[in-house]
């Protein structure tokens, strides 16, 4: 039986090395690896869908000594999303990057992809640290690809903050190893007894991961880093890299720190999430540049994800399944929609050379497909009906009222209204007077190939239609997840 989990990591790693060695044919290799990796990831998820969970011990050694790769419903769902989005980004990057930059982009991009798959499949605490490091370094390097001073400065800060986060996480792992003597998540969960050490380790690891997931007070590094990076990279950063950190928080919350993570910690996360939603949406509303708007909306969406935690902490099993499903659905939809939004922003920037929102009118008109993509992404970000976000918000609201913690509802309401405000500002000029006035008067508008527009549109379509209406199998997949 071919071990798909290992392939999902080995193939992109191999691809990146070959792409590094042969810069000439970097994009060809890159695309081939992209297709193969997505194939193996999807195959792995299929096996998980049937079998409930998949585990492979690397090097044949048992759990305590060796490292294992494990994939259950939760990681399979995120794996599928991130691989599909990454495939879309790879196709987009084919003609987005010019010659010189291209040979730098592909190897680093495939390494980022490896680390993403690594995070979703990791079942060993130290292995998570190494994968997070690889993720942080490749993301920072990709972000600084454009070489502009402010991009380099933003990504340098991102790298440093990431390092600090990883070190704090590692100290938590050290403490856990001191008491439990094992690094494997499964064994640690069994051995863990809620005591002072468990709480401290939990606090440290959570702190480190929250820094990387850019939850509200620790989000300062995200907007500049994501808005300065090239479009394809910022799509990956916002949709995938941040998601990996949130996934880890969820994984630790449910598997390892089940007994330790009480309602108190949940409430704290909820409050931070609420602040993130309001602050992120407000700053997004005030942002002048499209990519800055998208970056702040990522901060808000991360806030939404963390709103689920206080409810998860106290929900009895039946509601817990629904809440978990809603959280994953929100993560998936945001992944697709945000990636689509950034790619579309990249196209617009390439078209008219800038991405100041108020002057994007003519650009959007001249590219109807991009306009549609922006519209769909907007629908998914606000959470209007056909999108998966709507259902996730519906369940969140229902559970928050059901569980008596009604105060999350106004937060979601404010977030939704602010989101519609900033999406409206974006789309208003699609119908604005500029439409009739001069279709494309100022300067030669760079031609945008059909191929470049396709991935963005496809991704937002998935976010709105597929996840909106076809969300049901997701709950089936998440059956066996978590205690």
């Amino acid at each position, binding site marked *: 039986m071919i071990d798909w989990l290992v392939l999902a990591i080995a193939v992109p790693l191999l691809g990146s090395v070959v792409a590094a060695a042969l810069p000439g044919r970097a994009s060809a290799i890159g695309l081939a690896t992209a297709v193969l990796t997505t194939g193996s990831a999807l195959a792995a998820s299929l096996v998980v869908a049937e079998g409930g969970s998949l585990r492979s011990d690397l090097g044949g050694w048992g759990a305590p000594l060796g490292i294992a790769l494990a994939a259950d419903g939760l990681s399979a769902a995120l794996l599928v999303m991130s691989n599909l989005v990454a495939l879309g980004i790879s196709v987009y990057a084919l003609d987005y990057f010019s010659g010189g930059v291209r040979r730098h982009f592909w190897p680093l991009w495939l390494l980022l992809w490896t680390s993403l798959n690594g995070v979703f499949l990791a079942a060993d605490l130290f292995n998570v640290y190494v994968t997070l490091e690889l993720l942080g370094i490749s993301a920072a390097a990709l972000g*600084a690809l454009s070489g502009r001073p402010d991009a380099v400065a933003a990504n340098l800060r991102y790298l*440093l903050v990431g390092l*600090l986060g990883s070190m704090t996480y590692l100290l938590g792992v050290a*403490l856990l*190893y001191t008491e439990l003597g094992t690094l494997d998540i499964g064994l640690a969960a069994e051995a863990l007894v809620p005591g002072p050490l468990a709480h401290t380790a939990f606090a440290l690891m959570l702190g480190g991961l929250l820094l990387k997931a850019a939850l509200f007070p620790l989000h300062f590094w995200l907007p500049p880093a994501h808005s300065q990076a090239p479009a394809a990279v910022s799509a990956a950063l916002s949709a995938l890299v941040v998601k990996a950190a949130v996934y880890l928080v969820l994984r630790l919350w449910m598997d390892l720190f089940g007994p330790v993570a009480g309602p108190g910690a949940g409430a704290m996360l909820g409050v931070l999430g609420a602040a993130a939603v309001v602050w992120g949406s407000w700053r997004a509303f005030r942002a002048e540049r499209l990519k800055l708007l998208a970056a702040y909306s990522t901060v808000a969406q991360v806030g939404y994800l963390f709103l689920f935690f206080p409810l998860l902490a106290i929900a009895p099993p039946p509601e817990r399944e629904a809440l978990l499903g809603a959280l994953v659905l929100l993560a998936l939809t945001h992944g697709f929609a945000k990636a689509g939004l950034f790619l579309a922003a990249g196209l617009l920037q390439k078209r008219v050379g800038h991405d100041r929102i108020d002057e994007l009118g003519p650009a959007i008109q001249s590219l109807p497909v991009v306009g549609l993509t922006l519209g769909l992404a907007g629908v998914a970000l606000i959470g209007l009906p056909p999108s998966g976000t709507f259902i996730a918000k519906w369940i969140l609201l229902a559970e928050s009222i059901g569980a008596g913690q009604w105060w999350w509802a106004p937060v979601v309401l404010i977030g939704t209204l602010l989101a519609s405000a900033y999406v409206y500002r974006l789309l208003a000029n699609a119908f604005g007077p500029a439409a009739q006035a001069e279709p494309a008067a100022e300067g030669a508008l760079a031609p945008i190939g059909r191929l470049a527009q396709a991935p963005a549109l496809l991704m937002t379509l998935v976010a709105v239609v597929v996840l909106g209406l076809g969300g049901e199998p997701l709950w089936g997949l998440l059956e066996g997840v978590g205690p």
Partner: protein
Amino acid sequence: MYGLGGILLFLLGVWSFLVHDGLLRKLIAINVTGAGVFHVFIAVAYRGLDAAPDPVPHALVLTGIVVAVSATALALTLGQRLERPDD
């Protein structure tokens, strides 16, 4: 006892990271923090003068050091790129 020293180093590093803001200072702070954490690992691995120490943390620390140095190298290059983007 060394473990406490490691924790002290960790705190020193974090404090310096938060307070000072030069790139080099921050990098040294991070390396000190890392050294602190690795210190805790090795202290845990130490099992008395005679008994053989536990090899697993040693391997972890080895990996940690290499990762720390590569991150420092990248950070230094980016920092240097900031000061003189021309050449």
